């Protein structure tokens, strides 16, 4: 951070946020919904990236954190009649608790064992959500329409059914998470996390309690994932077990790899690229997954560090 392009770096991130803000006025409704979804899942990927990209820990259990947020928010609205802000806070709280608990256990392992342990916990969570189908309605899920009151803000009322409200809520969460992760990796904590990623034993012998730092990273990662899950439920008015399945643990890994692990804007680039690859190719052929797979293989060959990772290595060395 020495010869620092602080202003350029900050500017790039603000420009991205501004670009997304302006997009809502020009893009057609279909794409507005699409971008809303992308921003929420990009927040999920950014959370995932804090752990994988900036701490070097690969988890296959993040669906558990995403759906902790989703269920805590969805269930409190559905059964307890919580308003959106309180339900969102419930989602945040649940994902903090969940990631702290899982972290205390799973972080005793590293590498492949960590991957397996997080996956096992997540599968247990998924199966529990199916088993408790009297409450969660299992795979079928439940819908919040009719339960969720409109958001009251300074005398104004915002209905969650309004696409522009959805879009801007997603943008707010995305922007906050982007700036948070940018700040995090440039902070002293971020430097320690990078040290752990590069060489954990050396970091320990520089006097850092690496377990605590990894736990902190996992909690931040899990909480961002949970916040995304919570907002997903609020904006798409739905919570169901399928979003807790292993597929939703694989997605953020895929999005992050595609966009560029260990880059701040990689997650949104990867999430958007994947969403539009699926969208465009499924309009052309019914075997669209074949096309997507082939594209991914080509991208990994040409850009092993992901799209933004590749841009960073080739042209913009200063990208965080």
């Amino acid at each position, binding site marked *: 951070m020495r010869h620092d392009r602080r202003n350029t770096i900050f500017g790039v991130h603000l420009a991205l946020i501004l670009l997304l803000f302006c997009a809502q006025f020009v893009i057609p409704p279909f794409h507005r919904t699409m971008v809303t979804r992308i921003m929420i899942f990009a927040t999920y990927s950014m959370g995932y990236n804090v752990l994988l990209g900036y701490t070097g820990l690969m988890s296959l259990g993040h669906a558990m954190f995403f759906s902790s947020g989703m269920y805590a928010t969805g269930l409190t609205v559905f059964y307890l009649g919580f308003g959106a802000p309180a339900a969102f806070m419930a989602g945040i709280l649940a994902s903090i608790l969940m990631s702290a608990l899982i972290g205390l256990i799973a972080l005793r392992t590293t590498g492949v064992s960590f991957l397996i342990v997080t996956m096992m916990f997540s599968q247990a969570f998924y199966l529990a959500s199916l088993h408790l189908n009297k409450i969660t309605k299992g795979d079928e899920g439940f819908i919040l329409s009719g339960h969720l009151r409109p958001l009251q803000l300074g005398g104004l009322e915002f209905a969650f059914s309004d696409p522009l409200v959805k879009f801007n809520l997603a943008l707010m969460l995305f922007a906050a998470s982007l700036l948070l992760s940018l700040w995090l990796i440039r902070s002293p904590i971020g430097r320690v996390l990078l040290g752990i990623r590069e060489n954990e034993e050396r970091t320990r012998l520089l*006097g850092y309690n690496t377990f605590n730092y990894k736990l902190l990273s996992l909690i931040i990662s899990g909480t961002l994932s949970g916040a995304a899950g919570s907002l997903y439920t609020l904006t798409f008015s739905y919570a169901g077990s399928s979003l807790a399945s292993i597929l939703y643990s694989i997605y953020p890994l895929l999005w992050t790899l595609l966009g560029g692990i260990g880059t701040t804007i990689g997650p949104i680039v990867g999430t958007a690229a994947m969403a539009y690859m699926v969208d465009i190719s499924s309009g052309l052929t019914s075997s669209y997954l074949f096309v997507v797979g082939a594209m991914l293989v080509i991208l990994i060959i040409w850009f092993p560090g992901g799209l933004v990772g590749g841009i960073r290595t080739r042209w913009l060395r200063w990208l965080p």
Partner: protein
Amino acid sequence: MAEVAPMTPLLQTEALSKRFGGLKAVLPVNLHLEQGEIRAIIGPNGAGKTTLVSMISGRINPTSGQVHFNGRDITKLRAWRRVALGVVYTFQITSIFRDLTVYENVALAAQRRLMRRALDRVVLRETILVDRVDAALAEVGLEHVVDDPAGLLPYGHQKLLEIAMALALRPKVLILDEPTQGLAPDEISALCQRIKEISQEVTILLIEHNMTVVLELATAITVMDKGAIIADGTPSEIEADDRVQEAYLGL
């Protein structure tokens, strides 16, 4: 080791031993390190030198015995806590953050000393950090490669970077594990000069095979063989010791 120490040593081991399965790597050993000295530990390969300093730095746990530092029992302390107290180890095989810049390598060490309160983890004055990093790099003469990736440095510079990282931690005891290994002769003499300067402020425990370096630097020498200390004294005493000649110099 029946000698009487004039004061409490800065660092002391009491019957410290390590067994790996059936292998007794280090027999119960009493080592003491006085404030301000440069103590060299010499001995043939497999004598248990690195195992001994690894127990002192906390990288491995002893089978029995204790480590005292500044009058405090640190045997049970984790490695990172010992570093925080001022016991700093530099690796025999260089262990740096290869993909990070030289600056980031040293900054990670330097910021550890600046993190006194919880809030320091979140906000840290970057200017103070830059000063500390520059000072540490200047001490080893690496200020010209500050923005290079550490992994691309020549081997000798990587060793110097290790030392700069250790210095940025502001150690009280600096454990140097074969710092001259793999260096060219002119690099060795430059490094010796640096170590002499560093020893003005820091007590040094040095593992070294190069006897020229040992005799130039050490104010005290401990000789190990087969996991035990077989001699302990000033450089001239050690040079004259028959057991040392036999075990180490092979004469």
